[in-house]
């Protein structure tokens, strides 16, 4: 399948907040209630459409354990988008957001789009973090915010797609250097950078037109 762009995402956040479930819900449209610790990083992919363009999302699910934090760091640089997830039924996962965010900001490229996600919205009765608190945190740190449920699929599509929209807009604005693959964005095989429908990508890299495959 051909695509106009490919975006790389990572999903980060504490253990047990539902990262693997969110990925599975988005790529396979199913929910797996059994909790298995992600060792390292798992991978999933899906095609979406934005502005009638095919966009391929490649998503890496990271491990949330503190012990693996240093490994997670290696993924920031090459990602165009990150879903930062907490669990609305466990306050401590919300409290840890600052650490995650600092880590992400420090190691990622400055244009990486970060989406804040309060997951498990289906568990209203056990809620420990108010939606307003999530919104406030997002506002304060300039993030997009959404509450989701990997179980009911509520807002899961939206979370992934809205992140993609944001990235797409940044490309349109010429903020992202799309010729640098290290930013987590690739141009589709048949869309050369000289394609008139695409902005000429503010030429920060001198090597123009890197002979496309």
């Amino acid at each position, binding site marked *: 399948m051909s695509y106009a762009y490919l975006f*790389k995402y990572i999903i980060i956040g504490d253990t047990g907040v539902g990262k693997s479930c969110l990925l599975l819900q988005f790529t396979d449209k199913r929910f797996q209630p059994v909790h298995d610790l992600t*060792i*390292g*990083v*798992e*991978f*999933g*992919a899906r095609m979406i459409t934005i502005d009638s363009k095919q966009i391929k999302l*490649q998503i*890496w699910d990271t491990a949330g354990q503190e012990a693996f934090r*240093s*490994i997670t*760091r*290696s*993924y920031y*640089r*090459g990602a165009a988008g990150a879903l930062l997830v907490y669990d609305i039924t466990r306050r401590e996962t919300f409290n840890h957001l600052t650490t995650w965010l600092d880590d992400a900001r420090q*190691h990622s490229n400055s244009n990486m789009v970060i989406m804040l996600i309060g997951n498990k919205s289906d568990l209203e009765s056990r809620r420990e973090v108010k939606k307003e608190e999530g919104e406030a945190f997002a506002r304060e740190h300039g993030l997009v915010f959404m509450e989701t449920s990997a179980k009911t699929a509520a807002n899961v599509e939206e979370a992934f797609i809205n992140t993609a929209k944001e990235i797409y807009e940044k490309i349109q604005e010429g903020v992202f250097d799309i010729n640098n*693959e*290290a930013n987590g964005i690739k141009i589709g095989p048949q869309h050369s950078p000289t394609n008139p429908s695409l902005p000429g990508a503010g030429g920060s890299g001198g090597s123009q037109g890197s002979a496309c495959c």
Partner: protein
Amino acid sequence: MEYFKSGLKSVLGAPPPGTQITGAETVEKLVSRVSTSTLLEDRRDACRALKAMSKQYRLEVGAQGMDILRQVLELDRNDCEITGYCLDALCNITSKEVFEDENQSNMNMAVNVGEQFSEMFLKNQENVSLVLSFLDEYDFRVRWPAVKLLTSLTTCKLKEIQDIILVSPMGVSKLMDLLSDNREVIRNDALLLLINLTKSNANIQKIVAFENAFDKLLNIITEEGYTDGGIVVEDCLLLMLNLLKNNTSNINFFKEGSYIQKLAPMFILPDNLEEVGWSPQKISNFHCVLQLVRTLVSPNNPAQIITSCQKTLRDAGLLESLCNILMASGVPADILTETINTVAEVIRGNLTNQEFFANVLAPSNPPRPALVVLIMSMVNEKQPFALRCAVLYCFECFLYKNEIGQDLVVQTLLPSSTGNTTVTAGQLLCSGLFSNDSLSNWFSAVALSHCLIENPAQKEQLLRVLLATNLGAQPVTLLNQCGVFLQHTSKLQAKLGILMLLSMWMAHCPAAVKIFLNVPGAMAFLTAQTSASEFDNNEELLQGLCAFIMGLCVLFNDNTVQNYSKENLSQLIEKRVCIETYCKKLNEISRHEVYAKAAKQPQIKAKHSSELLLEFEFCKLFKVMEGLIIQALGVQRDLSNGISELSLSEHENALLLQYKELIRDQDKKLQDLQRKFNHLQKECNDLQTQVEELQQTNTQLVDQNTLLKVQLSTANTSHVTNIIHEVKSMSPESAEPYPVFIHGNNDLLLDRIKKLEADNERLEKVESELAEKTSELESYQRDQDDLLELLTAQDTKLNKFKERLRQLGALSRSDESSSDLSDNDNDRDSGPSLL
């Protein structure tokens, strides 16, 4: 060497005439020059000299200079030249290689010096970060030796450096950037480094893949001309292999990223290949690329991954290309073999791919199905062994979960296909089955058995197959002929093949059992084998298999053959063979190493034809059926000798129950003790290795200590006298720094010695701990012995009671024999349920 000496002279100044300076002294002077010189120029010259000496005088440079070289890397990092010298010197010091002109006279050869220095260097994680930071420097004199140093460290201490790099910020990313370096040497050496680093470390593999490794590697491969390229192509492929092997996440990424499609050009053979031929490098490259495909569809991967990769491989035209290679001429035999294995796994269990394969035609005249041509090679003695194995594997994979394929092959054997003059797969297998080549017998039998797996319809169909025997005699059924051949052939391999075919056939197929029971002499043969008390090499397998077939005859018996009903056969096993012997024979199979090897993976892995005895699918069948057979025989026995605890008086019964309880308890205790014992043994072993490790470190430290002492003594003799001399000639206040310097050096040594002493103490502590554990272990062992004794005593008592019971005329023979059996049977965990 002369140049080198004169170089040294210019660095150190000519020695006073008549004195012979040793390497150690020179190194020492150079080290002090580096540490004291205020001029960069001087330090640089000294470092250059150290680098030059770091092969021949590796021990000296390493022991005395490692710290200073490291310091220079930090302090003079802005000077590319001196940095390069230091990195090069460190690279030599830590190299695993023993250098040609290395001074080995006073070296303890038991230890690898490079490994030791690597360990010393890695002790401080900062050192690796330091070297990694030099990868940011574009200057060739720095970047290249930095890559080489890291590579050298990975060859000695892989696990350690993997762990450090994984937690170094951007560690892997920096290495990945090297693949884009336009200087080929650096790029190629970075490849080697990455190949080492990605070995069995899933986390590094994933990060490397995340950092666009597949794009970069495929770009290099393309630029280098695919499989026609040089060793770089091979290295790229090896790295890709490392990234994918057993790494589901990366395989998924590889597939989703459409990289499979990008492999396609590598499988297209050029038209003029026959003229150009296959260079050794091309063969190597091709091998790697085939391995790559196999990694994607390996039967060890999750089923979902296999299926989707198989589909992608077909859609991308790779399956077709692979089949073309199968049928191309001039392909080297080992490539052909590996291609067959690859095709096998690409089609295994995938109906569409299997159908595609069935329709591939060989360019023969007349055109024949590729499948038929392959089977011809399998039953041809002149073909290489590995190739014949590969064909069998491919055929098995073609039939795996493929009812249509199974039917297709069996159909070619049935009488209805009249007047067909072309050779068919079925015919080839049938003649292979009874040929003079025992390997062909084995291959054909296994191949045919795969037509029957989980397919009752084909089992029935195959019963209809008739064979014409000599001289216009009555045609006989295939199964009948198998039974006859089994008794006539003298070759073990052939017999085992036929027995595996028969067992696959007769399992769940009473009609087949019926025909087999009617084969003259068949049952007598099985009984004789099963009850035989001796065996030669591997004959225990034959006897076990015969026992197995007997069991299947009991299990799937519809009681229509006179004298061979379920009941009759169980009696036969019990009376003639004896149930214990029978179980023992059956047991031999799963305990045999050949079984363990065959049951491991579907692919037939054997170096020599004599190793081919059992086969994967048979092992699977055996595992399922073994228990059922034992169960069936047990049930039968109870029915025939139906005496139970009911016939005992209430009191006797209570007594019996009491004893049962007792034995059960003791059994449990015994097991607990056994567990404890194992645990302690393990602990003991662990402690032992710990002690060994500590002893090793100790000797290492002692070595270091000696070295340091040597250093100290030289310092004391030459240096110190000089210094003292100088000190004396100087005014008191300017003399101040020298004693401090010596003092500092001494302090360092004292520190080291103290550390050594502490280590020794620790060692002693562990040793005493070990002694304690050992005595604890012994006491447990004694306890266990006591308990065992107690158990025997109880046993005797129990027997006495039984005897008494028997005198009372109540206890049956069967109960007795069953308790005997379980007594001998401790290794099968029949445990508490033994009565």
